[in-house]
């Protein structure tokens, strides 16, 4: 197991380097440059050129690439071309916001989705099944930005329970939790829809297995059959779903962070794109790539935990 973890972790490095190189090349090919974005249309060509020199953008591309790569390998992500602030500081401040949003959304999705999936499977064809399926279909159909704005209108304006914008005061956990509520509910409800559907399908399949029939014939109670015998065998597809959806959650968080003005990685990414802030952009995308790889690696390891047969192979 330890060897597997080490091997997978080492795999992260070349993939991140490839991502870094691709992003570096794409950003330099794209029209528009940071100096123009920073000085605006009022600045003269002379002033723009002067700032380009100051930013080092007039140097050959290979020289810029090697400098950036050297910095990355030494853990120095450089300074934002627009704000001048260290990119590592920006990422260190934004990453926890995005991870908190993804984790809380996943938790909401699982806490609501797993029971609903079980109930709809066990009560197949009954009103609760129809209602649950309709509910999950709605969750799958509604875009996150629409749901986010609806929740804002409902819980920030009509029934003003939660704040609508920002990430909360730094160091004030209660305020941060309050600000996390609506964004995580937005993504959590969508996540719940996926979990419900997968859980229902998986449970329906498992409930038809011979060993379930055997358990019932031995007189074991239905609740115990479902929770003790059926549920563990539904977890493998759920782990796959979670692995895929954590990545979806992190990418969806871009839109949710914009709507709720949360200071996460998504906002950092969009802002860097708008300002052609190459340094911030390439670093943020490398972090995203790292997260995707780590999530997949964690999922692989979890398969072994929930299903020993996979581990033994």
């Amino acid at each position, binding site marked *: 197991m330890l060897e597997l973890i080490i091997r997978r972790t080492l795999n992260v490095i070349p993939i991140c380097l490839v991502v870094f190189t691709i992003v570096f090349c794409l950003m330099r090919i*794209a029209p*528009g440059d940071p100096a*123009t974005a920073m000085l605006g*249309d*009022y600045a003269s060509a002379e002033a723009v050129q002067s700032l380009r020199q100051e930013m080092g953008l007039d140097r050959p591309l290979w020289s810029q690439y090697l400098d950036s790569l050297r910095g990355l390998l030494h853990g120095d992500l450089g300074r934002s071309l627009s704000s001048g602030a260290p990119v590592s500081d920006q990422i260190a*401040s934004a990453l926890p916001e995005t991870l908190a949003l993804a984790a809380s959304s996943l938790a909401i999705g699982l806490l609501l989705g797993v029971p609903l999936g079980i109930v709809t499977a066990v009560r197949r064809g009954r009103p609760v099944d129809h209602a649950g399926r309709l509910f999950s279909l709605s969750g799958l159909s509604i875009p996150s930005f629409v749901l986010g704005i609806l929740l804002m209108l409902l819980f920030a304006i009509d029934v003003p329970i939660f704040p609508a914008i920002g990430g909360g005061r730094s160091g004030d956990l209660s305020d941060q939790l309050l600000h996390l509520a609506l964004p995580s509910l937005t993504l959590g409800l969508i996540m719940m829809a996926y979990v419900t559907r997968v859980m229902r399908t998986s449970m329906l399949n498992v409930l038809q297995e011979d060993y379930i029939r055997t358990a019932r014939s031995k007189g074991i109670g239905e609740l115990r059959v479902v929770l003790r015998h059926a549920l563990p065998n539904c977890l493998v597809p759920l782990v796959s779903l979670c692995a895929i959806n954590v990545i979806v959650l992190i990418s969806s968080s871009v839109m949710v962070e914009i709507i709720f003005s949360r200071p996460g990685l998504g906002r950092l990414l969009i*802002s860097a794109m*708008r300002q052609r802030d190459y340094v911030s952009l390439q670093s943020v995308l490398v972090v995203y790539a790292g997260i995707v790889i780590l999530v997949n690696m964690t999922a692989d390891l979890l398969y072994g935990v929930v299903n020993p047969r996979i581990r033994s192979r």
Partner: protein
Amino acid sequence: MACLLVAVTLSTAQAADRALRMAYDIGDIATLDPHRGSSHVDRAIADMLFNGLVRVPPGQANISTVEPDLAESWEVGDGGKRWVFHLRHGVMFHPWKDHPAYEMTADDVVFSLEKAMDPKTSAYASEYDGFTVKALDRYTVEIDTAQPVSETLFLAKVMNYAGGFIVSKKAYEDLGPDGFRLHPVGTGPFMFKDYVPKERISFVANERYFRGKPKLPGVELLFMPDVSARGIGLRTGELDLIQGSSEESWVKLMRSYPGISVKVFGPGSASILFLNTKSKPLDDIRVRQAIAYALSRQAVVAAIGAETATPLYAPFPGEYLPGGLTTEEVRAKGLDYPTDIAKAKALLAEAGYPDGISLDVVHTELAVMLRPMENIQAQLRKAGINLNLKVVDHPTFHSLIRKDASQIVHYMAWRPNADVFLTRFYDSSSDITAGSKPDTNFSHYSGVDGLIAEAKATTDARKQAELWKRASVQILEDLPAIPVFQGRVAMGVRDTVDLGYDLDANLAFFIPITETVYLSD
């Protein structure tokens, strides 16, 4: 859930004696150095932190209203080539880090203006060609110009706009350029407090401000690109003032909510179509006239809303800038090109294009510009003029239009005076590819070079304005550009905000936050 309920209870907002919270449509600031900042948010921040030698009063935009700011008075000599400013005594720069506040003197003014004149440290250096500055004594500064400059043009360069802001010499030297752009030090009513990249910037009141202690304890500016989120933040009371949308539907919607008002003010920006006069078929004036006749400004304005947009017939509007033509003056000269599809088709046929024309147009994705352009595209199609819109993101747009990649450039901008408008959009020196100082002459036009130079050289305000009007008439006759509409600025404000001055206009797209602004309970 229990934690959340506890948090709800703990977070009861206190309205009294708190910082003003405002949100603008921006992902982050570009720089806090006022001589480099050019976005509306950079300018809004500079306006709170810095002063000029003179200023246009808050809520005004016309240069003729200029009044003393850091200078108490000034004198002009040598036929408009020597300008002497007498500084206020006792104006204090903000303290920074471990450094206490200190008194502003002529040394700071000389340093600031020399910084503004240097393209290595200023985006506005080209405005100061031929300028030299020196301190005559601790409170007197002399600025000499190589050529005579009229008061209208000169004062725009030393006022609270663009390169005219006075920065602390000691702070700039202590912090260095990179440090100063993250920790600006000026003399304004508010002082820099902290900055969280991509999130917000905060300011506290400068209790030693020379016009008196600000009524607000501080200001917090949030970067919020989404207009819906800003609107909801205003409705929930989490925000006090927001940048809105220039579409009238948004204005009406926000006004329908209790406790919220929308301030709409000018001049905003002039929407103009620049036609590449060197590319076929736009090199034929009949084709350019056909486009002008095919266009209905009223239809464009109707789609945006009459309160936030007005039809524009002059290269720059006389309503805000001395030397600009008013709509009546344009009509009196028969240069308003009233909508006439038949005439447009006839002109195209006469030019040898009876089957119509197709033009390649690169356009920004910004909705405030794209929607009017789509409207224009639909209108021109009726006359057989097809615009192939290639929609790109805003930085790409700015890059491509400067590479001559668009036959028509739809540009929205405002400039502080007629000379800047004419020089940067219509003088051959500003030609985007062939100019000696490539800038924003997208039309490759050179028909008013003489008039622009003559106007620059005169110090007689009346004669200067007359020359600018002649240049405007010439432009409308030659049609290197077609003015479309003047878009005004809309800002949402809670009724608890009292500006303390009348807001009629502002040179940039923000509401000035001065020492008079306060929040009532």
